[in-house]
């Protein structure tokens, strides 16, 4: 899960004005009518850090528990180069995928 600072693309020590500006820019890019899901996320992030008090509360008490989903993207940071499979692997995969095929 991204932190509200990451969602709004602001630094941890950003002030009220910077955060509000960033929030409005994000809302402009993801208006509720066109992109309700992202808008909701942006709105929730803003509500968590819009004032100094809220930011302190977030840093002291409200940070959510990190999950596997937070960790997985980091694992991809050192991904290798694409490779070609062996003939065997390609054919085995094709055979397995044919098992899933439904004629009707």
């Amino acid at each position: 899960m991204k932190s509200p600072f990451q969602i709004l693309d602001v630094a941890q020590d950003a002030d009220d004005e910077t955060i509000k500006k960033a929030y409005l820019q994000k809302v402009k890019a993801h208006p509720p009518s066109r992109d309700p899901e992202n808008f909701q996320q942006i709105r929730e992030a803003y509500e968590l850090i819009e004032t100094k008090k809220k930011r302190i509360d977030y840093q002291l008490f409200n940070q959510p528990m990190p999950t596997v989903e937070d960790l997985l993207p980091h694992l991809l940071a050192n991904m290798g180069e694409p490779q070609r499979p062996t003939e065997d692997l390609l054919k085995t995969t094709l055979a397995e995928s044919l098992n899933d095929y439904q004629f009707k």
Partner: protein
Amino acid sequence: MAKPKKKKATTKTVTADDAAALLEKAAYKEAIDAYKQLLKQEQRPEWQEALGKAYFKRAEELAAKGMYKEATVLWENRASLCQQETEVGDYLIWLLKGNRLLRAINVFTKHQPQLSKELSDKLTVYIAALLLTQPAKTQTEILQALPENSLISQHLPFAQQAITAYCTQDDNSLEEALKKISFRSPYRDLRSILKALSLLATAPEEATTLLERIPTDSPFHSFAALLKNTTLEKNDLINYLYQKTTPAYAFTFLTTVLGFKKEIIKKIQILQKLSNNNPKELFHFAINHLAGEDKALAHSFAYSLMPFLNETEFPTYEKIFGRLPFFDRYRIIALQYEQQRGSLLSVIEAWEECIESLQDNDPPIPEQPLKLARIIKRFVDLICRDEGEEEAFYTVVPYLEELVDLDPTDKEGYLKILALTSGNRSNSKLYYEWVDKTIAQFPQDKDALFEAMKAATKKKAFKKAVGYANTLLKIDPINRDAQNVLFQSHLAHARKQIKAKRYHLVRKELDFAMQVEQRIQQKDLLATLEALLAFSQEDTEKATDYLQQAMALSQSNLSGQMLIVMEAKQVNIEPAALQKLLLKQSKKPGFLGILSASNKQLSANFLEPPKPTNDDILKLCKRINHYRQNGIKWTVKVVEELNNWLAKSTKKLSFSENELIEICETFFQLPHYDLLKLFSMRGLDEKNSHFPMFAYYTIYAVYYKKHYLDDKTYSLLDYALTVAVQRGDEKAKISLLKLQRMTDPLTAFLPPPQKTNILAKLLTEFMSLLEKLEAGRATQSDERELQRISKEILEITDDIPPDIKPLIESLASEDSG
């Protein structure tokens, strides 16, 4: 001992009707047996046909369960026993899915003309694809079984060549081979797939387009769909791979094609096996599998997990990442206790350590006062949640004072102090002081103005109240509370002027009140004041008229009488004098009959009303609440006059649970213990959803009336508490716990001042540790804790019951070793 002989199954003779019934109700297996039996008796064509149908339906059932081989056997039985060779398409599919490839090719070659073109095409592509995956020997056998001019036989070498070329990165040969696969070829979709695969690294968008071209009903579609995952965004791709539903073959293929390192694959596989986001497992994953390569990532991940673990993980954490700063350590401990719903004392102690650590900073860190204030606010909220606001008063108010001192903009802090002090009669001075501080800090704030207005009304400082109400109405012109205060203030002034016999001023106040009344809707109150003014001016006719109006507007005799009695007494007029006027009027023809037919004197102030309805009682409650909230302490005395009458006259009324709760709450707040008990006992049925609350009201009334509880009532308290906990009824749970503490002989000796709650908690912990010690279950750390608590109890109070004092003293003085 000889084996018991198996009983020979007695076969029941089957009739044609039985067999037909089995077929009808889709019991195909049994229908097959039945028709076989019938056909043994006589070869009838219709039975043979029915047997064929049963065979085929049963085969379909088995195929649906993935038992393709069994399905093909049944189809073959049908063909031989019933001479039925229809539904060849299904048979072919089952043969292919059951891996009877050679038989499938033979059947396909023989029956192809009978198949629909669509199915025939699909089967051709499927066989072609399947053929590619077979070992060389099987391939040769199948090619021999296929007609010489078959497209499969002709194009298989090109497809094979293309696969080899792609896998060995020989792109020239790949291009060459792909060119040979024509549009009519059963390998047409494979051609797009291989082309896409070769473009993955250099032109992923083009690759996606090619993959999207594969029709959804093509046998190659699943393979193409799997390959499309390689073009996903990183996060989506990793989430797909992490899903437990992702097939193992898809995982292996994708991670290979995308060039995942072995270590990453291993990590993903470990993560897949972890319980669903269990913090401890994730923490140990970070320590064991991340810290070695990416310490910074492991550190930040493990650190964020710490509040969701327990203290036992500190050594592991600190061994890898070094010692945590003091403040961080205690912040994490406090959050851990909060998460685990540990004892409130431990949570507060941990937060207090954080505060001390912050205060030790020299020079102070940026935003230090605000951080301190937020931490104080945190545990104030926790104390209030744990103990209930009223109970938390003594502990919390000093903290709140510190909080607003550190952060004067914390309006919530000010309002909380007001909320806590307003209900506490012994602290009215403190309350009014804080009202002044609040309004001085937030002079134009709606909430602060409301509180100031409320306090001024309570103090009967009506001019001040009107001032605040007017300021509030400037900010919020439709504020009903402000309108109500204005209305009540004008009436209060009117009452004062009646008493002072300045009747022209009464008129003025009532006229002002009338202007506000349009929005307040308290015409009955206004009519009563008019009656009192007329009565004071000895205009009995006008007074009677207004009294009648007030009674009619009250819409309830009982509530109307209560109104008149309460208002008359406030201006020193005897209610009995007003009764006389009403009685006289009631004897006149055409009177509305709002008074009872008997018109008997019920008490000094009341005439006996007609038999009450539920609505009458609820209206009476509203009236009582109104006067209690307006600070008229003698309301309870007036209610006392109705005590016996209410007990008798409401016997036959049946109240809903919510009505009963409303009534109980009225007499609880007033308080009137007899009436509270009278009504709360009516709700003491376990089936009632508010049963624990009714039990609380009943026990509360008993305790305050008698100052002790008998065993039966204690049992009711225990039981109601259990039910409240089971049902998650927080309000009842907190109230009953409070009552339990109050009535517990062990803690009842404690004095009420500031440290009562802490003492009560210490004693509870003391008793639980003592029980453990006596049962031989106490650890060394429990014993140390017991000693610490004993010392703390002795520091807080000397007034300990003699039966436990020596024990506490001896435990406190024991050598800690």
